[in-house]
């Protein structure tokens, strides 16, 4: 089903371009959601159901809702009048081109780009089971650290957002 890949890849790329090109922040946010949906579909095509679903659940469904919420509440208008400057466009093209070139070179030379990763065994454990098993055995310590880090961040945000610090 290669043609499905091209359709979803096109959706992701068009969304990505939309984020930059639209001047209305709400339109940009929606283009970003479109891009996330395209990416999620590609993950699901690779049998990585959990990653694809989390992409929608966490990024498209939660983070972007908050983005949109803030944009609408603040009623951002400054961006709308702006025009693209020549220097900015040249800089953007150079930076993006440089990174893409580096990425292509790395992928061509490393074995990630030339080797097909074996598919999940038919009828075996689902990808959810595989990821869960890894996270609770091999990577249990990093997971704990990330958990503590997020907890600290949450506490910090609550402390900072209080009006008067005592």
């Amino acid at each position, binding site marked *: *089903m*290669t*043609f499905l890949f*091209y359709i979803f890849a096109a959706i992701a790329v068009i969304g990505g371009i939309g984020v930059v090109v639209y001047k209305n922040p*709400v339109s940009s946010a929606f283009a970003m*959601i479109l891009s996330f949906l395209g990416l999620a579909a590609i993950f699901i095509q690779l049998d990585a*159901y*959990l990653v694809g*679903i*989390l992409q*929608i*659940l966490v990024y*498209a*469904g*939660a983070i972007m*809702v*908050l983005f*949109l*919420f803030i944009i*609408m*509440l603040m009623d951002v208008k400054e961006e709308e009048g702006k025009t693209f400057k020549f220097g900015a466009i040249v800089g953007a093209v150079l930076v993006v081109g440089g990174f893409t070139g580096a990425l292509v070179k790395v992928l061509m030379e490393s074995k990630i780009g030339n080797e097909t990763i074996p598919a999940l065994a038919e009828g075996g454990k*689902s*990808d*959810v*089971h595989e*990821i*869960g*098993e890894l*996270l*609770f055995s091999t990577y*249990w310590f990093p*997971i*704990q650290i990330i*958990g*503590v880090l*997020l*907890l600290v961040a949450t506490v910090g945000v609550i402390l900072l957002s209080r009006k008067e610090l005592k």
Partner: protein
Amino acid sequence: MLNLAAIDLVSLGISTAKIIGLVFLTILPMVAYSVWAERRVSALIQDRIGPNRVGWAGLLQPIADGLKFILKEDFTPKHVRTGYYWLAPALTMVPALMTCAVLPFGSTLFGEKMVIADLDVGPLFVFAIASLSVYGIVLAGWASNSKYPFLGGVRATSQMISYEISLGLSVIPLFMIYGHLNLGKIVQYQAENGWALLPLWGESLQNWNWLLVIPVFISFIVFVTSMFAETNRLPFDLPECETELVAGYHTEYSSMKFALFFLGEYAAMIIGSGLAVTLFLGGWSLPFGWLTHAAGSDVPFWHGLVHIGVFLAKVVVFILFFIVVRWTLPRFRYDQLMRLGWVFFFEIALANIVITALILWLVTGPLNKEETEAPAEPTPAAQVSSIEQGMFDEPTLLVRETSTFRIQASSF
């Protein structure tokens, strides 16, 4: 690039038939008739008669309403942001209908599984797609470019984000008990070993397994209440709160666009009921293992039909429950709603996960090792740390930990 021979036309045809049968021939008529049921039941509760003129007992009323919505002038106010104003109703309707793809609405018919997509991430898929439906409401509020719809949209955002958390956390105990995320297998397990809320036959009677009904019941309360909030139904319909916000986010909408919001709300309610039935009340199965067949075995044609009927009947009962609650309870105040979500349900759902882990540990360990000895000893430190470990991580990651519990349970 486009290799037509590679596309399996038979399976494509079967999937299309399932989609048309479930979405267009079952859920959409159910949406129309739950509106009728809502009006009739509310009339009953308020001692009125309700719509009873079009057809027998008013049964053709939904069709008349549909015709009216389509024929009415489609008015777009001048001050709206036109593109988004048009997009919003569709964005409410589509995700609501998409989520039904993973619901097992029957066992098997002609050897074909009665589910559109048999995914291993079923409930997560439902939550993911349902989390997109908030965009329709937010966008409607923003695109209408007037104050009441905007307030409705803002309320919808914060309400849905708040209750999504308790909704997600409330079902984790179930996944810990079942050990996987495939809705079809979850229903099959319940058919053979007792529904989650009614463990009266099969394995759930043995080895103290019935203790698990305690956390499942708590889950059920949290899940159903959060479902009311997620579908914007009274007592939590703050986004459209008629007494404060005219009609909330869809104040500026009329004709078919308004109808789409309405349909989206009812479709979300039906699919929420379907999910609750699947997770807690045994999906398509009859109680006490009647007409139940082992997974993969041949199911006679009429048993398959009965299973579909049972599922739909359970969903209908659940919808009637939604309707009765709407016309019984008064609306919450906004701060009460937020407090209930963050201060009570969030904590209850988290504590419930720990309770489930403790009971699973009791069931797999002390209670069944020596049949006579009561479990008086305190929890070993290692066990506590493994439970705490679960609490701070992503909810889904608990699955692995608990599926080992189940393996242990079956080996005893």
